[in-house]
């Protein structure tokens, strides 16, 4: 699979991972303490932030794997930076990435419009929630509360990651920096095939 990947595409995903790592740190400042006090549900609405890198990379590179790889690389980098969530972040990165990848694979990597990207965000949310259900022991919580958490995460994935990713991809395309990537080769620009 990696044969068809150019080195610049891999380095690009890695740098995107770092950028989102930094932005995430800036964004987390005002949410950290109250998130701790409110409990696990506090993180749900912002889960989409973690999925953006998958969707943005896929929008730009448009190759099988362009959703799983950046999420995985971003997770490895966060672990390298000494992220206190620790090595299990890599596993959750792979799982989230697979969720987003599934949506693009289901459309055979032919469509990259807003609907597919929102679907990918939702897919990442579903995969990560199933994993979180197991690892964080949501089984001990009331089903209706779990359903509320799931709905929040699903919306966050579709809105923050899906719409946000599309919005960023279009903005980045407009800067002209993306010449030489698949996104610039389609006639409609970022509008999808």
């Amino acid at each position: 699979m990696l044969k068809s990947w150019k080195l610049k595409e891999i380095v690009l995903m890695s740098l995107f991972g770092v950028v989102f790592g930094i932005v995430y740190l800036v964004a987390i400042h005002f949410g950290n303490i109250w998130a701790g006090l409110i409990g696990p549900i506090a993180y749900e609405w912002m889960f989409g932030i973690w999925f953006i890198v998958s969707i943005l990379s896929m929008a730009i590179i448009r190759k099988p794997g362009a959703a799983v790889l950046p999420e995985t690389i971003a997770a490895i980098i966060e672990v390298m930076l000494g992220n206190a969530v620790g090595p299990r972040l890599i596993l959750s990165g792979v799982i989230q990435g697979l969720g987003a990848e599934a949506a693009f694979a289901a459309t055979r990597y032919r469509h990259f419009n807003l609907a597919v990207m929102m679907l990918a965000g939702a897919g990442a949310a579903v995969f990560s929630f199933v994993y979180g259900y197991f690892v964080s022991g949501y089984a001990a919580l009331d089903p209706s509360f779990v359903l509320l958490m799931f709905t929040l995460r699903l919306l966050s994935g579709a809105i923050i990651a899906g719409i946000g990713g599309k919005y960023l991809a279009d903005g980045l395309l407009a800067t002209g920096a993306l010449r030489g990537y698949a996104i610039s080769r389609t006639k409609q620009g970022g509008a999808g095939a």
Partner: protein
Amino acid sequence: MSRLLHDMNPSVKFIIVTVSMLTMAFFFNPWTPLLFWIGILILQMTMSRINWKLWALMMLPFTLGAVGYLWTTLVFGADTGGEVIGSFAGIEVTDQQWAHAWSLTFRVLAFSTLSLLFAFTTNPVTFVMSLMQQLKVPPKIAYGTMVGYQFLPVLKDELTQIRQAQRLRGVGQDRHWWHRITGTRRLLIPMLAGAVRKAERAAFAMEARGFTGERRMEFYRPIKVSGRDYVLAGVFLVVLALSCAGGIVLGK
């Protein structure tokens, strides 16, 4: 005081830590995660040399998170039956819920301690090199990741620069937190555009110096798995097994 954990092979450590966490997920009694948490703390104390002040600082948000878990599980716990052992503000808590709540709380603490054990005793560069040499992560990905890691300070500076430049022109005076959220696009687009250009340049430079991304058998800095790594992995597994067994016995 030894530095055994610092010298442990990062890939072996990574696998052991992940296996331990996944195993913990099967237990809903309070004793297993508690015993495991204590076990990890003892390992950290006896087999590594770390800055405990920094450690405590990094544990703080997780301790708060653990408290969040405790009351969330108590208030929104699944109705699993069992005897009511007390009520507070109209919420009745059964013994089952009580046990689950403490179990999840200790699980958060055990997970964070385990994560910090990894973070405090692992050199990031060695970790990625070990992923490539032991776990066969393709060199393209391993070195691509290293590039990102090395660019971190550059990108951080760039963020400051972009912010200062925008402030100079009168944008970026965010008074409210929702302005900060909507304002992230203004920061993200230039950051990402810069990242695209840097990635291209770095990749070109690497290829110009003969990087092909092919797998190789020999490395400049070989990272090996020694007998000591198996022994340490064994120690972790013993701690894991003991806490699982202890939890089953005490949980009855």
